[in-house]
């Protein structure tokens, strides 16, 4: 089971990170977005190529108003 922003997703292992991002409506060109998989930053250049493993925890973050 792949966790996407803390929620169980229908993603299967073997899918790419870009596919996961697509479920959130995020494109690989979108500004102000950062991704961590299993607690490690994934640089934008690897979003298309990174293949998710069966228990991957994917965090997709973006700018939020804050002090």
């Amino acid at each position, binding site marked *: 089971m792949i966790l996407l*922003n803390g929620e169980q997703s229908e993603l299967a292992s073997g899918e790419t990170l870009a596919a996961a991002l697509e479920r959130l409506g995020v494109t690989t060109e979108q500004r102000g977005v950062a991704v961590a998989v299993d607690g490690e930053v994934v640089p934008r250049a690897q979003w298309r190529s990174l293949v998710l493993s069966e228990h991957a925890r994917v965090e997709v*973050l973006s*700018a939020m108003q*804050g*002090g």
Partner: protein
Amino acid sequence: MADAMSGRSPVREDAATHNGARAAGVDAAPPATDPLAIAGRTLRSRLVMGTGGFSSLALLADAIAAGGSELVTVALRRIDPAARGSLIDVLDAAGVELLPNTAGCHTARDAVLTARLAREAFATDWVKLEVIGDEDTLMPDAPELLRAAEELVEEGFVVLPYTTDDPVLARRLVDVGCAAVMPLGSPIGSGMGIRNPYNISLIREAVDVPVVLDAGIGTASDATLAMELGCDAVMVASAISRAEDPVRMAAAMRAAVNAGRLARTAGRIPRRLHARASTPDEGLADLA
């Protein structure tokens, strides 16, 4: 005001002061202050604004315009697919630089990872480092903060740590390479102002990097006091965004920061227990 001890006539003194003020441009509105340099970046505004707490992006944009800030903080959170409008686009249009924060992090590890993510998301090495140690006070966790600061400096970040008003911790943060220190005046969002002004002065003496008063500002006079104490800039979030009229308060903070900086650089008179006349005694009529 003419000095009673100078022996000069009050009329000439007033004229000289007036011309001097005009030459220095201090009667222009808004008053100009000297620019601030942090890690090689020059900022004309000494007001750093938080973007949190505004009820809409339009209100945020108006407040930034009124406050004149060139550097604003942003946070990083799980993306909300339903979010309307883009914060990044609004801040881009406002022409401000981004200062990502690590708000909500409680360990050095989380803060370092968040800073790395922010660098990826916002393409900036700058980070307002927050490592919170207590939910009631939101006070920094000093050992974790220092650890995170050291690691991030090693990774090439420009680190601006939110710290306590402890001059020793401030010095330790600068020793590990922080580009500025951001001591709190009082707890985040409390609006309690600067509870220990003497410590802020001590921090100003203790470090040779910019001091940015962070947290606790409630109203304009708090921001002025911070600048008068020698802070190089003031960070204001809730005091603007949660004011009844945020745009008006942003304008107030802009004027307050400028006033405080001008007063600091003008050199205030020393405090005296007893009065000292500003009107000369000489030439006093004998009316007995």
